[in-house]
């Protein structure tokens, strides 16, 4: 299924809904990363070798060598919440996706990004990678939606085409996870 926020309606309403969704993403990301960082401060954090071990296991999962399906939370933003109004609903949808954990998992590497703030040296490096998740979810959607709206069509079909291409990024993700595992375990 495509992560399209509810953008049916008038053109301006659609644009505001996409903007609310894109603004909600970093809020959710900051919430998860800051919670992890504070948890790390309280508990003493995670050592580099532990992060390296997790990165190695996730590399095997992302590369398909460890046949484990990581799907994340089964919860989805309820459709009836659209009663809040299309723009608030899109914002809530963005916040939920931005947390990375409230809904379906974007990719196996996200679990490393959830654990990283527990071992991060300070707040900014702790939240930066999670803001990357928000940016990765927001920018393609905004660009695709703008292109679709300019052509007078709903962005779902264009998003579906983009998602097929995005599915090939698992190779790059596996490479990065292996490098991180080597850097942390070798540290």
């Amino acid at each position, binding site marked *: *299924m*495509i*992560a*399209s926020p509810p953008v049916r309606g008038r053109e301006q309403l659609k644009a505001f809904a996409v903007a609310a969704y894109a603004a909600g993403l970093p809020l959710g990301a900051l919430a998860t990363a800051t919670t992890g960082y504070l948890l790390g401060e309280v508990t003493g954090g995670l050592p580099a070798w532990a992060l390296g071990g997790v990165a190695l296991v996730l*590399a*095997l999962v*992302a*590369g*398909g*060598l460890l046949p484990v399906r990581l799907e*994340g939370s089964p919860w*989805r*933003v309820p459709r009836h919440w659209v009663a809040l109004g299309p723009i608030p609903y899109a914002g809530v*949808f963005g916040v939920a*996706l931005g947390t*990375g954990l409230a*809904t*379906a*998992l*974007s*990719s196996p*590497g*996200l679990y*490393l*990004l959830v654990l*990283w703030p527990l071992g991060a040296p300070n707040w900014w*490096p702790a939240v*930066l*990678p999670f*803001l*990357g*998740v*928000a*940016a*990765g*979810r*927001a920018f*393609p*959607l905004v660009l695709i939606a703008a292109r679709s709206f300019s052509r007078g069509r709903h962005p779902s079909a264009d*998003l579906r085409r*983009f998602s097929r291409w*995005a*599915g090939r*990024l*698992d*190779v*790059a*993700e*596996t*490479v*990065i*996870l*292996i*490098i*991180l*595992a*080597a*850097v*942390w375990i*070798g540290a």
Partner: protein
Amino acid sequence: MRLTVPLSPRWSVAGPALVAGVGVSAVTLSVPRVADGWEIPLLALLGILSGIQGLQTP
């Protein structure tokens, strides 16, 4: 006669990724301190890649 080794879909992802990952890791770790400070840009890139893939799984 051509001899071909069928590659399972699993290895077609993991094979090149393992070779590239281990290769880059070996180079960076063989030079003292070159890997210092790499993890944050790599994690940010991992985040962006994960986010892009997340477009397909709401």
